């Protein structure tokens, strides 16, 4: 069935005597395979998200209920994944990657065209989803699994293999075209390689290479993508067209001041000047209504979640778990940074939602699935190390 040489790979890992765990009675959290701190912070984040969403949706409670339902579903996915052993993920990685790749190809052939890009795959009446979303997890999973077999820091041959594993889905996603997602997939996977110990010389080399490739990227961009970049550089050049979003979002945030205009009191948000206010630009609603204080609290919460996640990743003794968990949590940060950066006008507008706050089902499920795997890795660290 699965030809992956598991035992060998496990034997490589060090046998560390557990500190004290085995002897001690397992707590309820340990039995549930959940990290209480991380879970608590995620729940606080989601609850805050729902409060902001109520305001951002124009006070439509049904939107909040729909989002809460998705959170519920996503939490179930997280809990379920947390129960599985990391071994399972390791074993399934190639399968998930292969299936994902096949679906990306399928999208290219039979995919639905929505908003000018082929992104969706639909089995009529059953399900409709974006395979690229799944690849956000499947690609770093695959790279982690591959590097798990190798000696670290990775040698050149391993890096070439990694580059192929990463490159194929990234290119397939980019030609949909969905540059934002393809870059996120790439960065999640590249983070795995970085965490695995890519040498600084190579990092510098690739950074230089990327810089040199920028003009090439520009030449291959679609017009609307170039427009976004141009608008980012000078939003006032087209205030009613593509600059509208960024002008309105910075206006919303800036007018919020230190303390904000108060919940449900933001004129930019409530009077619909702010576009995409309950999805990608929801942070502007928070900024307008809760001010710098609310923004800082949110950023601190995100930082705490990321720190806790990295802490948990570092606690794992298995290479696979560490790399994957680390990549998940840092990707989470990239989402936050890119989203807040674009809404506040220091990054170009790319379609990246604010994790667990923006309205939307797929991304919540993907994110909490990632946290589920992270918790599984944490909860099963002793299991792995045995």
């Amino acid at each position, binding site marked *: 069935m699965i030809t992956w040489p598991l035992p060998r790979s496990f034997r490589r890992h060090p046998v560390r005597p557990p500190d004290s765990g085995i002897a001690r009675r397992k707590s309820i959290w340990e039995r549930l395979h959940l990290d209480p701190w991380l879970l608590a912070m995620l729940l606080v984040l989601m609850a805050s998200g729902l409060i902001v969403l109520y305001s951002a949706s124009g006070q439509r409670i049904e939107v909040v209920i729909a989002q809460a339902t998705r959170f519920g579903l996503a939490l179930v996915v997280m809990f379920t994944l947390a129960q599985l052993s990391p071994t399972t993920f390791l074993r399934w990685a190639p399968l998930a990657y292969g299936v994902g790749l096949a679906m990306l190809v399928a999208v290219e052939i039979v995919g639905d065209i929505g908003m000018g890009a082929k992104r969706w795959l639909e089995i009529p009446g059953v399900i409709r989803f974006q395979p690229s979303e799944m690849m956000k997890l499947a690609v770093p999973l695959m790279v982690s699994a591959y590097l798990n077999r190798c000696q670290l820091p990775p040698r050149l041959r391993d890096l070439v293999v990694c580059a192929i594993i990463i490159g194929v889905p990234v290119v397939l996603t980019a030609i949909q075209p969905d540059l934002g997602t393809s870059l996120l997939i790439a960065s999640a996977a590249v983070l795995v390689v970085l965490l695995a110990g890519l040498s600084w010389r190579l990092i510098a080399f690739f950074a230089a290479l990327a810089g040199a490739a920028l003009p090439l990227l520009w030449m291959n961009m679609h017009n609307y993508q170039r427009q976004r970049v141009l608008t980012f550089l000078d939003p006032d050049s087209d205030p009613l067209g593509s600059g509208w979003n960024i002008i309105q979002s910075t206006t919303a945030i800036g007018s919020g001041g230190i303390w904000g205009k108060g919940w449900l009191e933001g004129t930019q948000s409530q*009077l619909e000047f702010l576009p995409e206010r309950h999805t990608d630009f929801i942070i502007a609603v928070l900024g307008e209504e809760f001010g710098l204080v609310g923004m800082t609290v949110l950023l601190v919460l995100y930082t705490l979640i990321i720190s806790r996640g990295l802490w948990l990743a570092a606690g794992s003794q298995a*290479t696979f778990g560490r790399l994957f968990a*680390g990549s998940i949590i840092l990707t989470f940060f990239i989402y936050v940074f890119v989203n807040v950066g674009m809404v506040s006008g*220091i990054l170009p507008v790319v379609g990246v939602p604010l994790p667990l706050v923006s309205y939307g089902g797929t991304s919540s499920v993907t994110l909490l699935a990632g946290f589920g795997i992270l918790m599984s890795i944490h909860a099963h660290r002793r299991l792995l190390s045995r």
Partner: protein
Amino acid sequence: MRKRRDTLKNAEQELRIFRVRSLLAIVFVLILTGVLTGRLAYLQIVQHDLYTTRSEKNRVRVEPLPPTRGLIFDRNGVLLAENRPTYNLTLVRERVDDLDETLALLVELLELPEEEIEAFNVRSRQRQRPFQPALLMSDLSEDQIARLAVNRHRLPGVEVEAQLLRYYPDSEIMSHALGYVGRINADELKELDTGRYAGTHFIGKTGVERFYEEELHGEAGFRKVETNARGRVLRELGRTDPVPGQNLTLTLDKSMQALAYELMDGRRGSIVAIMPATGEILAMVSTPGFDTNQFVTGIDVASYRGLQEDIDLPLFNRAIRGHYPAGSTIKPFMALAGLIEGAITPDTTINDPGYYQLPNDSRRYRNWLRWGHGRVNLERALAVSNNTYFYSLAHDLGIDNIHEQLSNFGFGQRVAFDVQGESTGLLPSREWKRERFNQAWYPGETLSVGIGQGYLQITPLQLASATATLANRGHWVKPHLARRIGGEPLPEVLPDTLDDIQLSNDGWWDRVFSGMEKVLSGSEGTARRTGAGLEYRMGGKSGTAQVFSLGQDQRYNADQLEERLRDHALFMAFAPIEDPQIAVSVIVENAGGGSTHAAHLARAMTDAWLLRDQAPEAEEILDEMNDESTGVEGN
């Protein structure tokens, strides 16, 4: 064993690498979070004021509240200009998904010709503030409104807006006197106080509407409203109500105006009637008229060209801009000039052989009656309209005195207080001729002016105004159209009123009046047929004005000339003589057959004003005139 050691060492090394890298990652995360926080602090603290202003500007819109234009009534309170609600089609581009499709659908729904798409395109693409509606079409019909309502769901961004539009119930009768409003054009926009005219689309273009624009317009109000991004008004934050324009009561009498218009019976010409005691203009008609209402909504090109190219010049306001030779209607004023200057007394007589000759000149200046009127005094000269008497008088007076005295009666200048676009006419003088032709004044030209020909050109309004002054025994009252502005009457003495005219013997007025009465009531009077059956004492003077001058001793047959080369018929009159209530001037272009036509119309006007309900209707008068043979009644 060694291998195991290696793997162990490797594992430790891997863990160490990972921990170093995650530590770096945390540092990186903190730095980037710091960058974000810095950016947010910059927006929310440093630039807070800027963005607060921006967000207020977004949210709060100042909307002008245009004032309601004042209504215009005639002297009896009959509504002459009102504001009617009409429905306009507007479009907000930002809310339209597919502009071309929407425009095509509108053209289809409104059943407009295909060419309208182009016009729609132009109007809808005019650059303006975001979310400002662009006007596509005004004055929708009930049917069109209904069809738009049914298809509303297919037309996002398209609205039907109610608007008050000027409407003139008797537009043709009132066309020139009242004028009309029209859309503010680019030139007018440059001159306007944009604050006062915010939200106002119309401005008075001609006539009373133009002259009293300031009073009729009122003051614009404003309201601050909160709007959402789609421009929908959510609530009002504050407002200053507009001050509606003042209502205007005119001196015009709609029934007199209507009568005058009907009397003209489609001919070209003008009738002006003034109350001598007050200077109130009762009627001021120029025919043909036109429907001013079509100028309010914007006249279509074809109709406008039709009006412009009409040979009868319906857009031309003859009453105030038409230049006519005064003809013999100048004679009473010439007589008064002679009395004032002492060139004649009422008892001065001359002998008329049928012509006049200047000393040392063989040229004969003819009386209209070839064989002459014999002995003629002032009264008879007026009654029979003797030319020789006035040639002689003109020669005695000289052009300088004539110019001075006639200008005292208002000729050669604008006479009315509030008549927009009045022309000065032409009262010739030596200086004028030198300037105009660089020629000296010839004595023969003085003779022409003496019988109202030559260079002299008057407007119907000037003739009526001079007649009123004459009827007033020289007391000047400036003619005007407004009676009350917003309930306030006009000042008794209007600015720039001319000085009263004094005769050395006040009884001489009666002698002039007597001559004028004999025009209508005397056995020799040139308008004796018109004067038949008068129930009051009426004074008048007939006149015919040659359209082109004829050579010496040349007679012409009216039938041989084109209708348009026939003489103009003029008449000036006032009544009753002892207490003048009305002064009238009538000019019928190319009437032919002497002055009878104009005299009949003048009498119809005085009858209507003095006898009220007993006066004959316009139709009866016209029928009677058609039955009469147009016998020669003189000059």
